[in-house]
């Protein structure tokens, strides 16, 4: 019963071909059709759509990245230009300022010299006046001293 049936006997056996074979084939083809409708098509579509979506997003992102890069470059260029302008303006202002300072300085020096000269002249003048008045007083004082030392008679002689 058990192992003798390995080879086909009157009925049964391992190599017992019958209508199972074609019906199984038909059944399998029906399964292919059913799975094609319920599995391969929808899931395949989902996978393909996702791939498209990812690819589209990637392209868009790459475009945007390129745009951003370009914009950054432009900004940097503008920034460099602006910085250059700013430096030029600063240099100009410094130049102007140093010119003004030099002018003011020389003016101030000139005025100082002038004032000093005026002051010196005045001092000289006053010195003269003072000498004048001193000289008069010296005369009077020496007369007084003389009178005191010699007496008024001798002195007035």
């Amino acid at each position: 019963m058990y192992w003798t049936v390995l080879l086909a006997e009157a009925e049964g056996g391992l190599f017992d071909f019958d209508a199972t074979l074609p019906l199984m084939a038909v059944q399998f083809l029906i399964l292919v059709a059913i799975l094609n409708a319920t599995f391969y098509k929808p899931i395949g579509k989902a996978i393909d759509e996702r791939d498209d979506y990812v690819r589209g997003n990637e392209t868009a992102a790459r475009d945007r990245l390129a745009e951003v890069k370009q914009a950054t470059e432009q900004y940097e260029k503008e920034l460099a230009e602006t910085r250059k302008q700013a430096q030029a303006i600063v240099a100009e202002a410094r130049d102007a300022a140093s010119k003004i300072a030099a002018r003011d300085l020389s003016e101030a020096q000139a005025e100082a010299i002038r004032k000093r000269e005026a002051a010196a002249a005045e001092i000289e003048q006053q010195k003269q006046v003072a000498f004048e008045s001193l000289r008069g007083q010296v005369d009077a004082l020496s007369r007084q001293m003389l009178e005191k030392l010699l007496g008024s008679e001798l002195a007035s002689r």
Partner: protein
Amino acid sequence: MSNLFNNLNAVTLASLEVGQHWYWEIGGLKLHGQVFLTSWFVIAVLVVASVLATQSIQRVPSGLQNFMEFGLEFIRDLAKTQIGEKEYRPWVPFVGTLFLFIFVSNWSGALVPWKLFEIPAGELAAPTNDINTTVALSLLTSLAYFYAGISKKGLGYFARYVEPTPVLLPINILEDFTKPLSLSFRLFGNILADELVVAVLVFLVPLIVPLPVMVLGLFTSAIQALIFATLAAAYIGEALEDHH
């Protein structure tokens, strides 16, 4: 040999039935009922899984949809490597169903305790345990690659029989017979042998010892499904290939 096993059977509780079939008679045709019962189970598993997975398809997959997408990508890769980027798409359903049907069949044979269900004759087992199933699948594969070749090149397809030289004509013709033969017997032999080994080991030592063999059985079952699908795809790819 049979004496030995008969003696063993005398001291064990279960019995091993090989080559016993539960015959159904439909319109004068004989069918192996146990094969159809388990194959319907396998088909039901596949259809229910795909219907559940595709009920609400999300762009960001999760759960069953994710799993089934993984399966489909695996099948697509398999078909793509064998058939080629350009022509693999129409063959994905056929190759994929071959893989899924054989894989689920084999694993149902290894994982579902079919033998606990009492049927009038024979016993339930993996559908691929029956030579009719494997021959049906391999003949379909033959038809598929003939169809692929002829639909692409017309009668020019038969030019491959005299390539590279007409001397090889008999061998080339012989190949069309050996392909389905080897496909069907490899699958049938592996699955049957695995079930027999497990059954015999369960007879001899019911505890623990059969477990590694069962695990090995799971492995070979999966490998056999992969081999069948890969070879089918390779044959189709070969038929579609352009000759120089």
